């Protein structure tokens, strides 16, 4: 009956307690309690794992393994492409690590009051950045948000084709294609890619006009785009989209919204995006999260697949609390008849983001946007001064830009290898994903990169190219 030494994680791993409980049940052994399971379902081979580790052994074991990693603290990092390195205020980490939230489940609005309020404040602050009245609780990633929004649009319009910008993260496009279902399925949504102008990186409006018609449920583009470019033709895109009776879905990095116009101002119907830049660490990719926002209109409200949380008065005059809204339309409420599906998401990152947005305030977002723009443009100009190096879209970008190495005769892979030897993580290699861009890499420069960091990169790149 269990081992003689109690396990620190299990209060009843004391044989005497188990005996007391068995006596209360009137059973001789724990084994009897498994009598529902037929003998031929039971394994005849016990689990075989290395011996259990004590906490000190475990710590040593894990730290030993993790020491094989190299971090962006030890190296100068220019990778972005969906997971961006920004400063995370220590207060965000202090808040998000609280055991009270971590160990909560889903009690009542009264017993989960504080957590629910923090979630509401995430939605409420994000709402100010996107300038929309309805924001859902976070979804698992930007791609998931975009895929869900495209399906919302398909249900709203009864149409089964969408036009999606081609200058998009291939990973996100793959997520979207899975959400839109393969061609064999009865409700398949065809994804039509809209090209970009090779000179500017902006959406090719002629291609968009050719792609959009009365079969189009939605047009989807991002600003800044995957290639870093600020799409400034939003109003024209909205006009083409709405003339066809389609929904305009715009993906954004909310960190840019202190300086860039909210997409609703030029006609967006559904706004989606990432929440990782809002106070969440890279976490080896485990920092990603997404959001969906719309006008507070039943037309949209009834299509959300995700959970929504609403402020409401309590039975005590003058007091308010926070509870789930429109739960019934979710898959928890209606199983396969609900709006797509919901489940575990990244709700703790919503709390980190709420803390981040509160620390930032309007001035913080304005300032960080400006600092990023200046640092990124400075970096792009300095890199373009290196012989053989060209910045493909040299203006009108936010924090990422495409650097082309065709003139150096070097592959991105070998350049990045040399940079790595010099303690620098170079930009993401685009050569395979966007072959038309040649030997190119996507560089990310944020508020954390100083002038000295940029000079270090210029020096290292010069050396990498020369050898």
């Amino acid at each position, binding site marked *: 009956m269990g081992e003689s030494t109690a*396990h620190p*994680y299990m209060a009843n791993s004391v044989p005497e*307690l188990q005996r*007391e409980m068995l006596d*209360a*049940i009137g059973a001789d052994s724990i084994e009897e*309690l498994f009598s529902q399971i037929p003998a*031929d379902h039971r*394994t005849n081979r016990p689990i*075989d*794992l290395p011996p259990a580790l004590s906490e000190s052994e475990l710590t040593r074991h894990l730290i030993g*393994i993790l*020491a*094989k990693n190299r971090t962006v603290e030890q190296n100068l990092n220019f990778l972005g492409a*969906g997971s961006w390195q920004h*400063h995370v205020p220590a207060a965000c980490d202090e*808040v998000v690590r609280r055991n*009270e939230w971590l*160990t*909560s*489940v889903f009690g*009542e609005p*009264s017993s*989960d*009051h504080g957590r629910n309020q923090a979630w509401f404040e995430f939605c409420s*602050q994000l*709402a100010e950045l996107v300038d929309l009245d*309805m924001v859902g609780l976070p979804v*698992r990633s*930007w791609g998931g948000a975009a895929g869900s929004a495209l399906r919302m649009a398909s249900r709203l319009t009864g149409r089964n084709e969408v036009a999606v910008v081609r200058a998009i993260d291939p*990973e996100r496009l793959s997520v979207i294609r*899975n*959400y839109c279902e*393969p061609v064999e399925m009865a409700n398949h949504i065809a994804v039509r890619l809209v090209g970009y102008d090779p000179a500017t990186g902006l959406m090719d409006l002629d291609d968009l006009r050719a792609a959009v018609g009365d079969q189009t449920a939605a047009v989807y583009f991002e600003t800044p785009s995957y290639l870093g470019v600020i799409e400034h033709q939003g109003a024209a895109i909205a006009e083409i989209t709405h003339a066809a009776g389609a929904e305009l879905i715009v993906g954004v990095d909310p960190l840019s919204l202190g300086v*860039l*116009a909210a997409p609703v101002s030029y006609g967006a119907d559904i706004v989606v995006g990432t929440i990782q830049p809002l106070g969440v660490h890279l*976490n*080896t*990719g485990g920092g990603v999260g997404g959001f969906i926002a719309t006008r507070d209109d039943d037309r949209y409200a009834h299509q959300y697949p995700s959970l929504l*949380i*609403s402020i*409401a008065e309590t*039975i005590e005059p003058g*007091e308010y*609390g926070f509870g789930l*809204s429109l739960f019934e339309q979710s*898959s928890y409420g209606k*199983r396969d008849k*609900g709006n797509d599906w919901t*489940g575990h998401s990244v709700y703790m990152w919503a709390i980190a983001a*709420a803390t981040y947005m509160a620390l*930032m305030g309007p001035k913080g*977002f304005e*300032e960080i946007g400006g600092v990023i*723009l200046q*640092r990124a443009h400075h970096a792009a*100009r300095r890199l373009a001064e290196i012989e053989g190096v060209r910045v493909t879209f040299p203006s009108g970008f936010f924090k990422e830009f495409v650097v082309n190495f065709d003139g150096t005769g070097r592959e991105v892979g070998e350049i990045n*290898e040399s940079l*790595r030897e010099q303690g620098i*993580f170079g930009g993401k290699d685009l050569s395979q994903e966007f072959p038309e861009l040649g030997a190119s890499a996507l560089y990310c420069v944020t508020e954390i990169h100083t002038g000295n960091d940029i000079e270090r990169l210029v020096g290292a790149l010069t050396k990498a190219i020369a050898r």
Partner: protein
Amino acid sequence: MSIEPKELQAPVWREPVIHQMGAAGRRGVLFSRVEDEIEAGVGPAENLIPDAVRRRDRPALPELSEPEVLYHYLRLSQQTLGMMGISLFGTCTMKYNPAVNEAIAWRPEITEVHPLQHEDTLQGTLEIVHGMDLILREVSGMDQFVFQAGGGAEAAYVNCAVTRGYHAARGELEQRDEIITTIQTHPSSAATAAMAGFKVVTLPLDENGYPSLDALKAAVSNRTAALMVNNPDDMGVYNPEMKDWVRIVHEAGGLAFHDSANFNGIIGKLRPRELGFDACMFMLHKTFGAPKSGVGGPAVGAYGCSAELAPFLPSPLVAFDGSRYHLDYDRPQSIGKIREFWGNVPVVVKAYAWSRAMGAEGMAQVSDLSVLANNYMEKGLVAIRGVTRSHPDAKLPRLEMTRYSLQTLKEETGVDIHDVQNRMSDFGIDPPWTSHEPWLLPEPFTPEAGEMWGKEALDTWVAVVKKVSDEAYSNPEHVKTAPHKQAVHRLKPGATDDPKTRATTWRAYQRKTGR
């Protein structure tokens, strides 16, 4: 069991919504200005933005100092009961989230690492991910795991996408357009199947507490793409005919997926693969010790499958060649991505740490203690006036959960499960789980003791139900107006749904109330 439950008092901070706080001009975080020479070189930031998309107004965010923000959220955290009370939340396998795992997962070797770094710089993380894969293979009998799904429901969605890939490769996807599930399988199986484009066939229960074999036989055909089922189910009922189920589905050409969400009751006792299942799913954020965090996450639905299905898994997979670890993207039959990057790495690290701290014997003890605790509680709960157990004819001991009903209590006192949930929180009990929709049993509740809580906590939980039952029969109004000791009172019914009052954001609330 002579515990007399005592009322507790939750913190009442009356914390304003953050938009009501602060003062114009306050700052919570500053950024260093760019160097003068950069400013001189590139000019003012606003000139770097195309005129058409420059933001003209400032977002109406609060303006606060750093301590105001920090203490606001810390006060809110205090108004969250969770496991600071006693939380036996059913179907969720709630367990201890070890402090050491949190400490490790917040180290820079994990938080300050970019997923697109070169493999040479990721060897530590890849070793842990691969190690977790091997542990789950041993526990489940499957041949390969992937951690891309950000939760259990998303792992069910992975299963639907893999099912599409498998049948498409055989040219049968158009024909095989149905997925079979059961009414006591988690809603996410039915919902992800529908969202993936399948017609969903849901089997009802018979008097044993699980669907009959005949019902399955009637549902299976050459249109069957897959079976998606949990076992044990969310009532602690184990379907003893499951091997036949898998055989019948296989004979019809379908795949069989085991939603292993309730694995806490059977870990170490059986392996889904040995029952014939082609695939299964574990929730690392619950069953393997990482935090659930509300409804919740960041989380991981670890999806495992047979070698036959492995080519269809999302990319990348972590591979080991005997000396180095690789991210394998070269997988032509892969369904691609269901989420960006390769999973919530910190959660995988926590699950790996939990597994290594438990070892094989510890894991086996998890199901022993969970099932023992559930049956121990059942003895106390069914003795309480107004409480009945589901499927009274199914006499065998339930596994790690039991579903109960308060219908008798409601008929005799007017007090319903919602009232009881609220009143229990006054005694420091995290309100218990009822049941997923639809409620097959009226006024349901489903405690799941798990392996973490001691006998005293279980006794207290049962004693609180007894206390609330006594109150329902003696002073029902006191229960119906509960909670009395929480941070706030219960919400006005319907207020969060009515379009006139529903407000998911502060600005919507201000507009609708004119405040």
